[in-house]
């Protein structure tokens, strides 16, 4: 996979616990343009507190057309609280440090024919929506933002103010955001699309409110943030060659295969880096992909899966099975 060689060109720690990082090409010049809502996967080397190398996905928040640098914003996550250590590594970077990353990948783009965009963010989930807002401001598209963040901890407040001409609504508690959201969901002209990013529990609430207001699923778009609280899923079984075993709820296919002694290449263990891709055979009943790596066509083909996040979907008879081809 092609990697970009970057260096840390700027650091902004103004907002507590949120580090904004500017990454420039190591040898100067321009970086590839990207679709708003795209993310970058950073290589996180192993080191103190990190037994093995990691790969973390971060949304790009800067200018998406002909950028001379990339910008991301990373929330501090304490390894003592169970974080894998990627965030701590970013928070320890210094200006001039080298960083390698994939080229940007799009997984959460604004819908082109939409006539209006309703954006709902919580916390660091604002990041992909900042690049949406830049895009809408540039092309004169109608957009509305509801943003939930802790008081004094809002990231991108001044940019958001500029990009929305002060029309964005900020909230410091879920209850008031939900009350406003409920009103706004009832008053969007046909052609509007809804985008939400934040913790899974928050997005579930937004989706439930949208459903209750009669929104069809084709108008509702979510950006999941890594594995933070991915659904544990139902148990399913797997065959690898002659061997057959069961994957319990809450255990990933990758973990189960490692336990059986298979060496599956992996890096991020959260569906973003592409290392753990497995080919699947025809006995597979269905795939719940959940990754941010495979293209829609790959997913539709149903003949591959990412071991770290994908699970089997049951067939009509209730049997859930993946046939892994090694």
């Amino acid at each position, binding site marked *: 996979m092609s990697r970009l060689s970057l260096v840390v060109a700027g650091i902004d720690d103004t907002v507590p616990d949120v580090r904004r990082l500017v990454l420039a090409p190591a040898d100067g010049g321009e970086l590839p343009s990207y679709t708003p809502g795209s993310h970058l996967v950073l290589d996180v080397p192993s080191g103190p507190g990190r037994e093995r190398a990691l790969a973390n996905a971060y949304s790009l928040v800067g200018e998406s057309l002909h950028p001379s640098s990339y910008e991301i914003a990373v929330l501090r996550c304490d390894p003592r609280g169970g974080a894998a250590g990627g965030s701590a590594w970013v928070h320890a970077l210094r200006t001039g440090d080298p960083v390698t990353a994939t080229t940007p990948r799009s997984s959460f783009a604004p819908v082109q024919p939409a006539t209006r965009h309703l954006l709902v963010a919580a916390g660091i989930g604002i990041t992909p929506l900042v690049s949406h807002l830049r895009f809408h401001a540039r092309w004169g598209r109608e957009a509305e933002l509801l943003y939930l963040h802790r008081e004094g901890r809002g990231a991108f407040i001044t940019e958001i103010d500029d990009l929305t001409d002060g029309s964005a609504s900020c909230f410091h508690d879920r209850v008031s955001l939900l009350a406003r959201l409920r009103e706004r969901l009832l008053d969007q002209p046909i052609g509007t699309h809804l985008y939400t990013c934040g913790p899974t529990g928050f997005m579930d609430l937004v989706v439930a409110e949208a459903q209750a207001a009669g929104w*069809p699923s084709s108008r509702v778009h979510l950006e999941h943030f890594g594995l933070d609280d991915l659904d544990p899923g139902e148990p399913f079984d797997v065959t690898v060659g002659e061997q057959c075993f069961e994957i319990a709820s809450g255990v990933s296919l990758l973990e189960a295969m490692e336990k059986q002694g298979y060496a599956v290449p992996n890096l991020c263990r959260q569906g973003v880096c592409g290392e753990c891709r497995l080919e699947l055979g025809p006995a597979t009943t269905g795939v719940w992909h959940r990754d941010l790596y495979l293209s829609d066509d790959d997913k539709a083909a149903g003949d591959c899966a990412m071991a770290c996040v994908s699970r089997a979907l049951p067939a009509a008879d209730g049997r859930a099975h993946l046939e892994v081809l090694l």
Partner: protein
Amino acid sequence: MTSPVTASAPHPPHYTSVPDWTREPVVQPADPLGRVHTVIEVVGEDPAATAPVVAGWVAGLDGRDVRHRACPDTAAAVAALEADLVTAKVGHRVLVAGSADACLAVRAAGVRGGLADDEMAFGVVSVETRTVWCVHCSAATVAKLALDDVVACSGCERGLLVYPHVSRRTGRHLGFMVDAEEA
């Protein structure tokens, strides 16, 4: 070995642009999650056919905001839908009862008005008639036709093959001169 080459038309890559309900009459269910429902009844020649479809939907949506628009023909149906969509909010659903030909035309108006596929449902009462758009002269020909039939274009009289492709934005089948390559 000889391979049996019989079809003169290029083979379509897939048939997904032609909805199943234009091949046989299907009544799709109303979506109970919608807040407001416009029910367009394109009465056409056979009011006895659309009435029970509409009655079924209306009964199922009891207690919801349902706007029944009975329209004598497709043009009136398109106008009624367009008028409703001017003020429609997300949460709106559109149900169309009528011939497949009328449903395709009203669906096209819905697509142009910004409706998504999961905001529309169709109750098809007949599938005999199709509208074919001629790629040579742009005339529309309406006739009792099956896919892959040949029909004389109402504009230029060319023999048009009814190609299995329907435009989402017009609701018409694509028609082009049969054996054009050899002409």
